[in-house]
């Protein structure tokens, strides 16, 4: 089996051919689905758990604390212990709650993030599906999650939950616009919605550098809007623990709560990888124009490292926001979107369209 | 305003009352029935301007209740203490001053809650801390066999 750390397409192709040679085509296809599903599930669990750990460590260091350090070396298996604890906790049944929706809600949230992760290109040739409308798909799928939030808040028959859910609805629907528009900036530059094409177009430099100031603006807009879209601080109005105790998941316990919790962190991961893919070149190493020597050295670092490095950087920035800023109020939140982000984004798109039309960007 | 001067002004306004300026603050004793009228004069008179009711509390003197009002003028910086006796110990009633100072509304509720003094014309005379049907714990004859430990 050919294995190349710099290009996984050979490996995946070999597995594909192997399966089709051994089995009838239908079974081969099903087996492939199962393999991909299991791998993604594993990635999901590991990444989710360690993001929780990372968050706790990052905020601890910002707050002059040590953070988890009792379970395992540096507390590395703390979150696994937490997960086991959550698994063993009682699932409290809320009387007068809408049982069906109440039980479904966490799954909707988690399935949405699960679907989104399928389209993420981790390295060259290492992605489950490569749609030609990848960016569009990611946006569409990740906004299914808000339905889970709304259902959770509505069905749990709690006033705090309902307020939280309504806030979340208003927030996600508004910020979806800005996320879309800021992604559109790069789509205009690269001329494609396919994530692999967007990455390939950054072989000679990332869009954040090639696209002049408008690309940087789009990147910042994307960071802000996507932080809001995934309900993280300072936009965590849906949870707002000092106002609504825990917002939409006040009434959830045990593993259902863990689903919400994991879903939130996975959304952060998805958003960060999308930002890394679209603006920072995904798994593409840092290339500067025609500096062959420098580019060669950068190529030496495997794409997986590049991809995770960029993603972790953006996750850190999102965490940095959360642990520094006070929470916005709902009207400030909407003002920020409709008065600042959206108009700036629209103007930005116009400027980018003009730049692309004139061919002024670095090709 | 100085204490003596304040005493003179008060004596002029309320000739029937005995103004005591010997303690640390000017004090006088008023009739229960007049308390609202006197309070209104104290607040609105240009020379007095007692706009800040810093304190209001009741004392159970076993045969009667006393209500004590501490007033301060934030503009002129003088203080007066008014004391009034409610003779009826079984059913103490006094006029409210909560229309003059908003803080009195809550302080009177506290007095009602803990001492059982009723305030007429009070907009919202409910218990503040304790449940309905609890006794009036600051009365001297209050007994609680369960929670009270005598030493």
């Amino acid at each position, binding site marked *: 089996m050919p294995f190349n750390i710099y290009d996984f397409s050979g490996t995946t192709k070999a597995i594909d051919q192997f399966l089709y040679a051994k089995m009838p085509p239908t079974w081969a296809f099903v087996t492939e689905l199962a393999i991909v599903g299991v791998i993604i599930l594993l990635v999901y669990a590991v990444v989710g758990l360690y993001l929780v750990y990372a968050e706790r460590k990052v*905020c601890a260091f910002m707050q002059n*604390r040590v953070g988890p350090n009792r379970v395992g070396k540096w507390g590395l298996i703390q979150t696994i212990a937490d997960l086991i604890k959550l698994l063993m906790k009682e699932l409290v049944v809320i009387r007068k709650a809408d049982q069906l929706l109440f039980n479904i809600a966490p799954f909707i949230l988690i399935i949405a993030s699960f679907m989104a992760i399928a389209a993420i290109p981790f390295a060259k040739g290492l992605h489950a599906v490569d749609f030609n409308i990848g960016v569009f798909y990611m946006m569409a799928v990740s906004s299914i999650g808000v339905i889970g939030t709304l259902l959770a808040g509505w069905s749990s028959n709690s006033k*705090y939950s309902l307020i939280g859910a309504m806030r979340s609805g208003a927030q996600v629907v508004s910020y979806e616009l800005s996320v879309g528009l800021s992604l559109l900036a790069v789509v205009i530059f690269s001329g494609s919605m396919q994530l692999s094409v967007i990455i390939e177009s950054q072989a000679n430099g990332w869009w954040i550098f090639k696209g002049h100031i408008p690309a940087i603006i789009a990147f910042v807009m994307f960071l802000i809007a996507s932080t809001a879209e995934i309900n993280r601080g300072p936009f965590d109005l849906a949870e707002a623990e000092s106002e609504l105790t825990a917002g939409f998941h006040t009434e959830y316990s045990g593993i259902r709560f863990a689903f919400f919790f994991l879903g939130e962190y996975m959304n952060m991961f998805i958003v960060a990888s999308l930002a890394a893919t679209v603006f920072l070149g995904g798994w593409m190493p840092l290339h500067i124009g025609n500096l062959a020597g420098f580019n060669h050295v950068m190529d030496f670092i495997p794409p997986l490292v590049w991809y995770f490095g960029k993603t972790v950087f953006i996750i850190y920035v999102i965490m940095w926001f959360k642990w520094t800023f006070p929470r916005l109020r*709902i009207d400030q939140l909407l003002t920020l979107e409709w008065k600042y982000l959206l108009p700036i984004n629209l103007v930005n798109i116009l400027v980018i369209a003009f730049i692309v039309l004139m061919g002024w960007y670095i090709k | 305003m100085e204490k003596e001067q304040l005493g003179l002004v008060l004596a002029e306004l309320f000739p029937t009352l005995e103004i005591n300026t010997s303690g640390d603050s000017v004090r006088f004793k008023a009739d229960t029935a007049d308390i609202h009228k006197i309070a209104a004069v104290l607040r609105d008179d240009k020379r007095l301007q007692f706009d800040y009711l*810093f304190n209001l509390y009741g004392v159970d003197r076993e045969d009667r209740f006393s209500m004590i009002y501490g007033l301060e003028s934030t503009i002129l910086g003088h203080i007066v203490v008014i004391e009034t006796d409610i003779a009826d110990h079984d059913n103490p009633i006094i006029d409210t001053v909560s229309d003059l100072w*908003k*803080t009195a509304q809550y302080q009177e509720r506290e007095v009602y809650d803990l001492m059982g003094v009723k305030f007429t014309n009070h907009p919202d005379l409910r218990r503040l801390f304790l449940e309905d049907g609890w006794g009036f714990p600051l009365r001297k004859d209050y007994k609680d066999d369960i929670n009270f430990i005598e030493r």
Partner: protein
Amino acid sequence: MQEVELSDILTAREDGDYIVNIGPQHPSTHGVMRFVVSLKGEMLEYVIPHCGYIHRGIEKMCERMTYPQIIHLTDRMDYLSAHMNNEAVSLLVEKATGVEVPERVKYIRTILSELQRIASHQLWWAAFGMDMGGLTCFFYGLRDREHILDIFEESFGSRLLHSYVCPGGLMGDIHPNFQKRTKEFIKYFRKKLPEYDQLLTGNVIFEQRTKGMGIMSKADAISFGATGPVGRGSNFACDIRKKFPYSAYDKVDFKEILYTEGDSWARYKVRVDEMWESMKIIEQLIDNIPEGDYSAKMKPVIKLPEGEYSQRVETAKGDLGVFVVSKGEKYPYRMHFRTPNFNNLFVISQLCAGNKIADLIAISGSLDLVIPDIDR
């Protein structure tokens, strides 16, 4: 906003109002306080505070305790201003019995009060930041408060409820390290306080959430008896330290911080500026503590002569009044505490009218309520 009866709330619920109970167990009420809130969407229709969840009957308990014993109860009213509460009773007893305390005691009491004020404001800042959603503020506030608590612990053994100031003076002399540590703290905190400004004061989100929110006019502040930083944020000059100086406050030079806006922002700024002022007061006194006894001679059994006595001090929350009716016994006949938080609390119904539910949290945070002080 008119006060609403409990029966009205019940009927209102049938009318379809959205009634939410914030508290008694809620992260932002800082204790067992309950606000009954009626909502129209995010907007507050009315807010009714309900108190009494930790009513312990301190006034009644005082009637069975000697004056030195009362001191330890006052700790438990406003536990963040324990020194000032102790000092209020001590000053009253000293005034009534005619005892002159040594100069040293006055200086130490003033320094302790100001340290306690800084500690209280630090905790308020921490909790206010947390109410706003900035959890990091909470840790920074507590981190710096720890230094003051260490000073307290070294000198008199406890961190929160000190019972250190007693009628006649102090329970014991200050620790030899006290001055050194206090000076170190001032040096440290002068560096850290600007960070507070960077993290919250200048922050655009924070500014928009506090500026113009919960405006209280000066007339209302006086009428509601809202004192301390709450009153001073509305330009109500209510500082007892200036009006009726006690202990060593007549010997130090400090500004009474006044802001005219009357909104949450003004109340916030008053407290932050008061921390600077308190540090100035401590710096003026810390090197000049006169030598002498740490306590005046008191009679073995303290009896107050028959009469009525009062003493007001400025705690971190405002004007604390202690009122005693004595019949010449060793127990007070009636003891009343006019606590600042009690009077500051009831402003909230008026301040929150027409704001959003998030503002209720911000405004009640800016009032700096300590619930045991309300309930007593």
